[in-house]
């Protein structure tokens, strides 16, 4: 089968089982190695290091010394190096291809960021060295803080949270601290049905009760639904709301300001999940929308590596109402330079930090990369990045909407587009099958089965990084697969996919029902 550019979209040899299933003598395929576990590489009988005999040393273990072999493989350096290089070659990454994982913003990680992060002034410092000797690093944190506050129109920032969900926890802890400071017993947090699962989990973790708000037929949360929820629970019980904007259906919450007003009027706080900030960066300031707390994912919006490539970083910005409760450490400016306040004695400031989230100040390397990204784009460049991200998602939407159903009608999306599997009804092919076939086609699949508000969700986020050519190739491939599924007759080929991967479709049921949780040597 060919797509309209003549590219083969599924293996020609599917008519010839012999070629497709023939194993090589070595277990390798092409130059892609079949990599066993380190323990299977073996070498229990040899060693890769040459240690001096320690028989002269006095044994002080008091009879507790190991009697048998330690059971670790004794690999040579090239054996160990090859093992990890081969594994890395089996890893799919944003550096190897299109990665349209919705709600994850898998954008390109610019090499300039990496160059900046490798400057010795940033790499060769230690969290415990005197602050007077790391003023440059503190200045970088201060500048990043300035930009993040500027982009959001907020008052205070906590840089230290190390992931999006950690940032949510931080923001909600600030809200909890504010409520406690006011002796409030408010304990209900409103969360829309389409929210990231971490939202209700965060609220519950902090002892709040979660009340769910249904989405409207157009996929967004309506102010009247929030008002109803407030009235049902009683305005005096509302601690706040957690809302993602744009939401996980890729739609802008158009009534966000009215929602914020309703929650504020009830006396609650507005937490905004900033996971999808890439769609609005440089265009809308959450502070102007009535947001009291919002986390960023530096590893999404600000291009720092993630998905196995690097640590997350989830700074939180706070409104004036919450700014006093920001956790330590935070930066303070004086004539002597910058100070990282590690402990709040409460003497000369109004700060009432709720505590501390991390041992040190957070992910310094990610701060460098994020600021590098911000400065190399400038405000106009950031606004263009979000505009291009939205344009690319709508391009995908326009190219596929005749084949796939949009659960909330044909409306413009933000940085990601949501389809469901209703157009595949009766074909025997599911969203999962489409995703597995995409792997055979050399694409990381989109997010599937999330959000849960529609059946068989396919959430596609191309980001601004992709060229038209690369999006076209993806769209044409996906279109060919959908058309093939609708034409019927190849249902089995869909269920068999992927066929070109080092491992085929995994038995998730067996993995869950009979998990093997530790290595078992076949030779034992």
């Amino acid at each position, binding site marked *: 089968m060919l797509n309209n550019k003549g590219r083969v979209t599924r293996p020609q040899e599917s008519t010839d089982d012999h070629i497709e299933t023939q194993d090589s003598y070595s277990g390798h395929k092409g130059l892609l190695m079949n990599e066993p576990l380190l323990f299977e590489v073996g070498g229990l009988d040899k060693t890769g290091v040459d240690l001096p005999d320690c028989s002269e040393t006095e044994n002080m273990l008091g009879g507790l010394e190991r009697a048998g072999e330690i059971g670790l493989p004794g690999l040579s350096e090239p054996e160990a190096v090859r093992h990890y290089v081969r594994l890395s070659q089996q890893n799919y990454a944003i550096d190897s291809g299109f990665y349209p994982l919705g709600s994850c913003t898998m954008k390109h990680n610019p090499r300039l960021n990496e160059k900046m992060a490798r400057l010795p002034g940033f790499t060769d410092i230690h969290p415990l060295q005197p602050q007077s000797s790391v003023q440059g690093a503190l200045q970088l944190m201060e500048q990043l803080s300035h930009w993040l506050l500027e982009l959001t129109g907020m008052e205070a920032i906590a840089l230290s949270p190390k992931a999006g969900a950690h940032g949510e926890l931080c923001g909600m802890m600030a809200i909890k601290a504010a409520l406690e400071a006011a002796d409030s017993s408010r304990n209900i947090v409103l969360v829309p049905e389409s929210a990231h699962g971490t939202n209700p989990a965060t609220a519950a973790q902090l002892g709040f009760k979660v009340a769910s708000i249904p989405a409207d037929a157009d996929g967004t949360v309506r102010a009247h639904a929030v008002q109803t929820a407030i009235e049902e629970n009683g305005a005096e019980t509302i601690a706040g709301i957690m809302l993602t904007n744009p939401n996980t259906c890729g739609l802008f919450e158009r009534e966000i300001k009215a929602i914020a007003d309703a929650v504020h009027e009830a006396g609650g706080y507005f937490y905004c999940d900033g996971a999808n900030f890439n769609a609005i960066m440089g265009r809308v300031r959450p502070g102007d929308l009535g947001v009291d707390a919002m986390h960023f994912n530096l590893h999404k919006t600000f291009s720092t590596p993630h998905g196995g490539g690097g640590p997350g970083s989830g700074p939180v910005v706070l409104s004036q109402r919450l700014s006093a409760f920001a956790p330590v450490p935070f930066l303070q400016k004086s004539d002597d330079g910058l100070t990282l306040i590690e402990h709040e004695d409460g003497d000369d400031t109004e700060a009432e930090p709720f505590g501390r989230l991390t041992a040190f100040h957070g992910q310094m390397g990610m701060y460098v990369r994020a600021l590098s990204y911000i400065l190399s784009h400038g405000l106009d460049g950031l606004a263009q990045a979000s505009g291009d991200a939205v344009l690319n998602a709508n391009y995908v939407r326009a190219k596929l909407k005749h084949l796939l159903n949009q659960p909330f009608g044909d409306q413009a999306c933000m940085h990601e587009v949501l389809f469901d599997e209703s157009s595949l009804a009766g074909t025997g092919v599911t969203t999962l099958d489409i995703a597995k076939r995409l792997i055979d086609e050399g694409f990381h699949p989109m997010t599937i089965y999330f959000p*849960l508000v529609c059946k068989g969700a396919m959430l596609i986020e191309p980001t601004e990084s992709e060229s038209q050519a690369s999006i076209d190739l993806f769209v044409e491939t996906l279109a060919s697969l959908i058309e093939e599924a609708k034409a019927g007759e190849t249902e089995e080929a869909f269920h068999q996919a992927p066929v070109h991967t080092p491992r085929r479709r995994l038995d998730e049921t067996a993995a869950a029902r009979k998990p093997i949780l530790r290595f078992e040597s076949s030779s034992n």
Partner: protein
Amino acid sequence: MTKTYYSQSHEYVSVEDGVATIGITHYAQSQLGDIVFVELPETGRGFKQGDEAAVVESVKAASEVYTPIAGETTEMNEDLAANPALANEDPEGAGWFFKQTITNEDELTKLMDRAQYDAFVKENQ
């Protein structure tokens, strides 16, 4: 004489001699896919109608199981806890979840019978 009722959230209640046996319907298990874990309520727990009573986890999703009627649990299906696949193989038989008393018989009348439930499933497909 056993009489079975169905809820809109795809639980069934089989009533025999004043004891209700509750589980998920065949349609529910087909939507969930392979079930890998169930969390059942301890005996002696009291529920209101619509309370979250159990959790079922499949390779696709984790879902709550709501009790369609108020009552107090009297027994949980130990076999199901040990072998969650029973909920796939025989959901409305050996794959039952728990048994409970019936506080208010009237609540049963608000549930669907088999024909109504089949029509409900068809409508929502």
